[in-house]
Every structure is written in C-alpha cells, then in structure tokens.
C-alpha cells in the first residue's frame, strides 16, 4: 500500500493520463497511415472511380466563419435545453449530422442539443421534420403516377430549391464535387499528406487559389483510400489562416443502412404542410421579388469573381416581402430572422451608392439600396469595386 503524500499521485496520474490520451491520440492515429504516394492527377482519377453505393455515418460541420453576431446566430448559441437544430446553428461552431444513403433513399439528421432537423427522401417523396417547432413538410410529385425514376429526379430538384433540403448537399461527397466543378486554371492542385478520417486512411487533395484577391486560402479534400469517396473537406481562410469550414465524417460505414430509416410518418400533434412539385417551385422560400427576375452577372474571374444579382428590390421591400411570404413555420424562424439579420448589418456607402455589408472569414455579401446583391469569396473592397463596375 502506498503511503503518505505519494497517494496524491493516484488521482494526479489518472487525470494526467486521460488528458494526455485525448491530446496525443489524434496525432498517433494520423501517423498510422501507410498509403502509396499519388499525384494530384491520380487522386482526381481515384475520385471518379468511387465504388461506394451506400453510406451511413456521422458528419461533423465545424464553422469558424467569423460572422458578426447576428440576431438569429446569437439566439441559436444554445442555452442548455434550448432547441438548436435550425440552419443558423450550422453557421457557427460545431454541428453534428447523421447521414444515411443507399438505393432506398437518403436521410440527413441535423442534431441540436435537444432538437433535430431531418430531411428524408425515399425516392418518391421528401419529408422535412423540424423538432423545434414540430413541423413536417411533405413534398410529393405533382403527377402521382410518375415513375419512380422521374419522381426521384423531381425530388432532387426540390432538394436544390428548398434551402432546408439543400442541407443534404452538405455531405462531403457532394460538397467536394461542387468544388471540383469550379476548378479552373487559376488553381494549384497538389496532393497533401495522408491522413486518417473517421478511423480510415485517406489521401488528401489540396486546391490552392493562385489568385491573391480571394478569402479562400486553400481547399483540402480527404479521399478515402479504400472507397475513393471524399470523407472530409476543409476550407481555410486567408483572414484567419485557419480552417473556416470543415465538413467531414467522424464515423462512416459504406454498408447499406436498414431501409426503415427512410420511412417516415408524421407524428401526432405535428403541423404538416403538403406540397407538390409545382407549388414547391412557386412558393420556394427563396424570395421571388417583383415581376422581373434577378439577372445573375459575374464580375471578375476565378476565385475572386463576384456574383451580382440585379433587379432585387430595395432592402426595405426585401425585408417586407420576406416577412409576409414567410415559411409555414411560426415567425420565430426563417423569414423573421432574415429581416432582423439585414437590419443588423453595418451600413456602407461609396461612389457606387449605399447598402449593407456582410463580411465573414470566407464569404462577403453586399446588399445595395438600389436592389443589387453581390456575393463573393472576396473582401469588402473588391465587392465595392464590383458594385461600381456593375452599375
């Protein structure tokens, strides 16, 4: 039996061992990979040879966007016991999602402390469940007799139009596909050091913009060595020099999930909103203001290009319109937040006019009073220059 003051080494030893284990374990795991060296070109080919047809796992989204403390973002900071599973919670801090996908359907569950938002598609219909306000949105094909393939295509289209369903596109797979599609000669593509993602060895593809005008420092895509599927995407910011957005699996399996996870029946007491294909397109939550549609225009090129949407009504109208054409949810989320966010943004003005500016570590946006919206992975000066150029 150890005696005297030596006994204090027992609690101290346990504590030190645990803290050391939590700090050392990640680096040990990373050192364990033993993969053949591949060039960037070979990695891109590997990506196209992806074999996985099903996936299930846990995805972690870590955002350090440095957004100003906007009303809704601050609100979703999450006091204990607060339902924090809405979209804005993804924009700050760490969000955990569980994903399932196979031939039977796809499901994404965004976890909050005591809340969850689910998007469930089984090929013929899409269910969106929000535990915070206990609402269910049910999207079905306009033509009920449509074949399975056609309606699943429609379901995919809605997934693109509904912002909440667009969440589904945040899986590492789809996000990196979108990034690769945007590849241009303006980018240096290299292979990075091998890593371990979700306990599996993975290659890394590093995309570095040659353009110094962008806020994107680099985009790193981890590609699972066995399944050739992207398992993690990291976007660093030139503002902070650190990752601004990391989307990656913390746990992944490429076996088909039980089909029952794609089954959904609205629970008793929930508010169910039925939508069909046509309706979903028309009453999409993206504000469709005025008679003339916004005409997209691109100023600049490569990573520092700025997207300009003209013909958007002035800010007062925008906030008013979005307030009245709100989502079926009660006023606490969605449209209500938008007007509050716009009102909280700092006002800026210059030779191009005046408007409100949103800056972050990765993306900036300028909403001008004459009805233009400028968005780009650039700083405020570039946006204002683009505003002057696109007048």
């Amino acid at each position, binding site marked *: 039996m150890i005696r*005297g003051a030596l006994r*204090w080494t027992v609690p101290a030893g346990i504590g030190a061992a645990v803290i050391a284990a939590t700090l050392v374990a990640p680096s040990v795991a990373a050192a364990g990979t033993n993969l053949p060296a591949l060039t960037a070109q070979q990695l891109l080919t590997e990506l196209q040879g992806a074999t996985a047809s099903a996936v299930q796992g846990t995805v972690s989204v870590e955002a350090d966007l440095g957004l100003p403390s906007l009303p809704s973002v601050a609100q979703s900071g999450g006091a204990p016991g607060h339902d924090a599973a809405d979209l804005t919670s993804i924009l700050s801090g760490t969000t955990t999602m569980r994903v399932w996908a196979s031939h039977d359907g796809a499901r994404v569950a965004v976890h909050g402390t*005591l809340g*969850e938002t*689910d998007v469930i598609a089984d090929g013929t219909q899409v269910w969106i469940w929000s535990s915070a306000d*206990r609402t269910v949105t049910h999207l079905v094909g306009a033509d009920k007799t449509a074949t399975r393939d056609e309606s699943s295509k429609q379901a995919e289209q809605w997934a693109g139009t509904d912002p909440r369903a667009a969440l589904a596109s945040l899986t590492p797979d789809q996000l990196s596909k979108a990034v690769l599609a945007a590849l241009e000669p303006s980018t240096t593509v290299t292979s990075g050091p091998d890593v371990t993602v979700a306990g599996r060895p993975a290659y890394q593809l590093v995309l570095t913009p040659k353009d110094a005008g962008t806020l994107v420092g680099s985009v790193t895509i981890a590609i699972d060595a066995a399944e050739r599927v992207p398992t993690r995407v990291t976007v660093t910011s030139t503002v902070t020099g650190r990752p601004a957005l990391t989307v990656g699996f913390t746990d992944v399996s490429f076996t088909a999930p039980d089909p029952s996870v794609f089954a959904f029946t609205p629970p008793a007491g929930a508010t169910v909103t039925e939508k069909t294909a046509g309706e979903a397109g028309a009453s999409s939550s993206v504000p469709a203001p005025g008679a003339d549609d916004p005409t997209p225009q691109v100023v600049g090129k490569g990573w520092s290009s700025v997207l300009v949407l003209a013909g958007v009504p002035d800010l007062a109208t925008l906030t008013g319109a979005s307030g009245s054409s709100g989502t079926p949810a009660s006023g*606490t989320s969605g449209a209500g937040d938008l007007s509050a966010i716009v009102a909280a943004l700092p006002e800026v003005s210059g030779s191009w006019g005046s408007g409100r500016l949103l800056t972050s570590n990765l993306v900036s946006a300028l909403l001008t009073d004459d009805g233009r919206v400028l968005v780009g992975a650039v700083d405020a000066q570039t946006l204002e220059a683009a505003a002057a150029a696109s007048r």
Partner: protein
Amino acid sequence: MSAAEVVAPTRARGAFGRFFRSELWLIFGRRRNWIGGLILAAVPILIAVVIKASGSSGGDTFLFGQITQNGLFVGLAALTVEMPFFLPIAVAAISGDAVAGEANLGTLRYLLATPVDRTRLVLVKLGGIGVFTLAATALVAVVGAVAGLALFGGGGFVTLSGTTLGFGAGLGRLALVCLYMTLCLTALGAIGLFVSTLTEQPIAAGIAVLGLTVVSQILDQLSQLSAIHRYLPTHFWYDYGELLRDPLDLTALGPGVLSALVYVAVFTAAAWARFTTADVSS
C-alpha cells in the same frame, strides 16, 4: 485481541453491508433530505398542472410541446428543467455533507474509532452519493411520468427524429435518460466528496460544488474557450438528448460516459488520498 484479528476478515463483508446501509439511512432518513426531495418532485407536478390548466399545446421547445401528447414527457421536461441547477443543488448538498458533515457534528471521530477503515469509508460515501443521485433523478422522472400520464395519458412516444415509438420503448428511453443523468451527477458528487474532505464546514463544501457547477456551465457557453470545453464536468450533461433520437446511437454518449467515469475515478482517488493522509478526524 488476537481472536478479534482472526475473525475480522470474515466479518468484513457483513460489516461493509451494515456500514453501507447505515450510510443510506443517514441520507434517506434525514428530514431535510425529504424536504429537498419534495422540492425536486414539485417541479414535474407544477409543469403538468400548469400546462393542463392553461389548456395550451405545451410550449415552444420540443419536450414541452410533446407533453400534451404523452405524459412521459412531463418527466423528461422536468429533468431538463432541473438538470442545470436543482439536481446539482441536491447532489452538492449531499456530497458536501458526506465527510465534512460528520466532521462538523463530531460523529466522524466515533466512526473512525469503531474502527472503520478510511478507504472503505470513502467508498461507502461514494456509493451513498450514487444511490442518492439515482433516487433523485428517478423521483423526478417517476413523479413526472405519473402526473403526466394521469393528466394527459400515454400516447405514442415521439422521438426528436420525428418517429413514433411505442409506450414501452418510450418508458425505456426515459429510464436511460435517468441513468445517464445519474452518472453525470455522480461525477459531480465525487467532486463534492473530495471537497468535503478538505473542510469541516458542510455548507461551504456544498456551496463550492454548486459554484463549480455554475461556473462550468458558464464557461461552456463561451465559444472562445471551446478548446477546454470537453474537460468541463458539465459539458456532456445535455447529451441525454441523444437518447431521444431514432435510430438510437449509444456511441454518441461515449464521450459523456467516459468523462463522467474519469471524474469519478480522479476525484474519488483524490478524496481517498486526502482522507487517508490528512488528519481529518474531529
């Protein structure tokens, strides 16, 4: 005296059982602890009656909103309301009292003169705290469930994922939530046990533990300190929400369970080191 030394090992187990029973009697036999229990049990009754009387659909949050659908949610809502403060108060009071209370009353001297092995005394005190914690969470859950089922009935149990489970499965989920909270609060109790060996003032020990709980929860809200969040004793407390999802993924509770077990191990060992080396006997 040699005869006593020979029989001592065979008597040890029975003595341990008696010692543990007397410790439980000390906790559950005290009138002040009964009053504390009444306060804990009042919260779910208050929630159930107010929601029934107002006739509204419950409240803004998911747990409160489900109450009118299934009475079991009164238990869950009450546990959620009491977890940040009420339950820690109870655990802080009991664990702070564990050693300091006996030292303060002067009964510790008699206990050690019996003689009771000091290592065994630390383990018995920890066991008593664990049983009390389980009783406290179960009290809130059972009172809430009974009150809720009486006023609202038991329909389907809707998970956070929007799926509906049967009544039995829902009851199982409520029990799992109780067990998880018990583990988390027992970790707090282990800290309290250690603090209790540092002082002879049970009130001071209890307040110190409660202060630690509050400070830990405040630090957990500061995103600038996210690097140390996982080491905070309260950080994983609200992970019991993972038990309300479908399909159930118990691995999501892994960090919380591990954190609680480490806290129990470290602070029980610290209490043992302090109590067996320092002269805590008055």
